[in-house]
């Protein structure tokens, strides 16, 4: 776990070091309008940090480009960020033709590692040739997910055929995790240069965390994303390890019921009361 946390910290630093660039033309980055129209309620605001994440990932993985898309249950979508204009184009392509690695990754809940697009023509008869036209030869899609909570995918593009190395795969999974956390923690809404004040950790693979997520989701009648946001916000604001908070929730020692009619919709605004029992 230590190795993993160190990797996440290193990647966060890489992302922070990426310079801000003006938004891409065509609205792929920064067109809050396109995301609002996609109906993805949690994900509004300035996408600067996600765009920087895409560029940092492209650099770290020596990829031709990286794209990030979100999807809701109803299949509505938006290209949230990309490292460059071509990647934004290819990313958008999947939604235009309704097929592709990102679409498949989100549908199946598995990464889709297409190291040779020529071999995928049968599977993606519209997407594969079109992506090839844009210069892509390999695409690797990583779902942004925690169990049943699946919000989209991160696509890594290469203009050369060939599988990702083990090291690159590990880096890619870590970037995907940070992309998910960035969205959940609302960091994509933080002004440029300011890291939002949130947990600098990872999504633990511990069972208690996800059990707590499910329990809270049922208890508060919110979706899984909101449940995780509440857990993380509580851990952060009370300066307690996330896993401890999760254990208390599962053990019914912690009752995260929001404060009456005064609570607003911002992340972590719920007044969380400690049950004495």
């Amino acid at each position, binding site marked *: 776990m230590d190795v993993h946390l160190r990797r996440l910290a290193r990647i966060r630093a890489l992302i922070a070091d990426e310079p801000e660039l003006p938004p891409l033309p065509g609205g792929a980055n920064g067109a809050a309008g396109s995301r609002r129209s996609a109906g993805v309620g949690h994900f509004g605001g300035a996408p600067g940090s996600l765009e920087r994440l895409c560029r940092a990932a492209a650099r770290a993985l020596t990829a031709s480009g990286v794209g990030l898309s979100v999807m809701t*249950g109803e299949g509505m979508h938006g290209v949230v960020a990309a490292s460059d204009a071509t990647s934004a184009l290819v990313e958008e392509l999947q939604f235009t033709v309704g097929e592709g690695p990102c679409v498949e990754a989100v549908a*199946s*809940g*598995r*990464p*889709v*590692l*297409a*190291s040779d697009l020529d*071999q995928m023509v049968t599977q993606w008869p519209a997407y594969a040739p079109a992506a090839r036209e844009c210069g892509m030869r390999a695409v690797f899609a990583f*779902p942004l*997910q*925690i*169990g*049943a*909570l699946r919000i989209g995918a991160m696509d890594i593009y290469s203009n050369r055929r060939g*599988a990702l190395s*083990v090291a690159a*795969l*590990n880096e890619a*999974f870590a970037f995907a995790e940070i992309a998910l956390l960035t969205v959940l923690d609302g960091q994509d809404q933080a002004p440029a240069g300011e890291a939002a004040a949130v947990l600098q950790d990872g999504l633990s*693979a511990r*069972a208690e965390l*996800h*059990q*707590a*997520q*499910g*329990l*809270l*989701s*049922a*208890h508060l*009648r919110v979706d*899984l994303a909101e449940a995780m946001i509440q857990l993380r916000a509580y851990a952060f604001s009370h300066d307690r390890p996330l896993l401890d908070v999760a254990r208390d929730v*599962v053990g019914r020692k912690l009752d995260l019921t929001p404060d009456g009619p005064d609570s607003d919709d911002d992340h972590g605004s719920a007044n969380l009361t400690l049950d004495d029992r």
Partner: protein
Amino acid sequence: MPAVAAERVAEVFVEVADTLVDGFDLVEFLYRLTERATELSSATATGMLLADVSGRLNFMAASDERTHLLEVFQIQADEGPCRDCFTTGEPVIENDLASATARWPGFAPLATEAGFRSVHAFPLRLRGEVIGALGVFSAGTDDVDPALNRVMQALADVATIALLHERALQRAEILTEQLHGALNSRIVIEQAKGVVAYLYNVSVDEAFLLLRTYVRDRNLRLTEVARTIALNPASAPDLNRAGAANSTADSGSDSPA
């Protein structure tokens, strides 16, 4: 140690082979495998770990996942019979876990506390490649019938072939995709445990038993039911045999092992 009926062994192998066909669901397959391994060897519990691309072992499924047992399986990613079995590619046997603290200072006390006295770990290997390990745990101290060991290893071998089968035929990346998909499915199950624990006002362990009984009785897929419940708690099916929600009564004939 009672000998296992040859017919039952054959049935299990056919069943395992059957699950390889349509719509192969890795987590489902591994749950089935660990349950059958436990049954065939009259063991107390069986757990399965698989390696990812970086050679790290991941706990995938167990025949009994009550919280106090979960730790015994999970710690073996770092230390224990399954870990040793994975690194050496050879079976690992320990018949007296209580005195194995020098061998496994972290794992042995945990296993003993959980009530286990012996363990047999079998490698999942094919032509020199080891992809994981199957750990069979017993509360009793009877020496296991050597014939049974061969059956267990054969079961592990069948599982290995099943897992590598798709990879050999298609893209090498299939194993990574499969594994990460399965790891995510595990999380779905944990989320569903939490939801059910709340809805039925039970512990997460009891919630899991409710879920497993429900899917087994109706021949449904655990991962699919879990996903439905996790996504929409309000429309969760009635998991209680008695038919009444929020009942904490035992569900009759299906008492937990």
